[in-house]
């Protein structure tokens, strides 16, 4: 479609030029010699008019699209972590955690693992720099620490409660996760 449009515009330009020469040619004093500098300038302009939209801008838009996809994935990851944090902080320190809440927390951790794996695969696919891939390893280590804290201890006991201390520690770990995910987004934005 783009090539057809380009051809049509080029043809119109040629026809206009021919028309001007035919009808008003006597009003113009046209030289017989071609100036090399002017010709180079025209050819360079034509080349840039073609190269910039078809190659440079397309490449830029493609990279922007990939970054947006990745950032959406990181946002989804953050939402799941936030959801778990919200579940933990809303638990009463004197009332056992209900089974539905436990199931929900475990389900969210499974989703986090899968989302993280997808990110890892995307970075492999786009051949991201090692420093970006290392961030996935860092976030995975944090994920494990966070999961160990939230679902460790005697989580499987019916009488399990999140103590005040446990909730504070959870909050510290959740903040660390948010920080690393934010750094990851900054790294992604800085990608060429």
């Amino acid at each position, binding site marked *: 479609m783009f090539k057809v449009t380009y051809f049509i515009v080029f043809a119109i330009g040629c026809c206009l030029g021919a028309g001007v020469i035919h009808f008003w040619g006597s009003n113009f004093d046209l030289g017989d010699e071609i100036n090399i500098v002017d010709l180079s300038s025209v050819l360079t302009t034509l080349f840039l008019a073609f190269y910039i939209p078809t190659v440079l801008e397309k490449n830029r838009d493609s990279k922007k699209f990939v970054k947006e996809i990745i950032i959406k994935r990181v946002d989804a990851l953050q939402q799941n972590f936030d959801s778990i944090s919200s579940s933990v902080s809303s638990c009463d320190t004197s009332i056992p955690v209900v089974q539905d809440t436990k199931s929900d927390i475990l389900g969210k951790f499974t989703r986090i*693992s899968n989302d993280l794996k997808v990110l890892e695969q995307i970075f492999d696919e786009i051949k991201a720099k090692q420093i970006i891939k290392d961030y996935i390893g860092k976030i995975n280590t944090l994920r494990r620490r966070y999961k160990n804290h939230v679902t460790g201890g005697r989580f*499987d*006991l019916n009488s399990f409660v999140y103590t005040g201390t446990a909730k504070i520690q959870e909050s510290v770990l959740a903040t660390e996760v948010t920080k690393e995910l934010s750094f990851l987004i900054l790294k992604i934005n800085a990608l060429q």
Partner: protein
Amino acid sequence: MGIQYRELMDKFITLKVAEEFTKTPGVREEIEGNFPGEQFLKEVLLLKFEQALKENIKLLVDLDGASGYPTSFLEAAFGGLVRHYKSVQTVRDNLIFISKDDPYLIGDIEEYINDALKKDV
């Protein structure tokens, strides 16, 4: 310790947690009692592992189909297995996992196995 399931089913004793124990490890109804991790170890995992050792083949633990695994359950089960045999190597050499539902679960379990003897019981 993860492996391709189809190719190796015949060469292992298999243990499907969701079918042979529970689909909700670590999330139990009151009537089912507490300590599901230890219960899984004593009633299912130890027996199958011992059988695998006797027959000189590996135990393939399929973790798929469950609603998620809390650390408390995994540590009690697989960490407990290491503490029973007092050997990380024995467990690592004879246990294989499958986990398509949660891609990092096997790595987590490996950590609990490696750290099992450092834990104060």
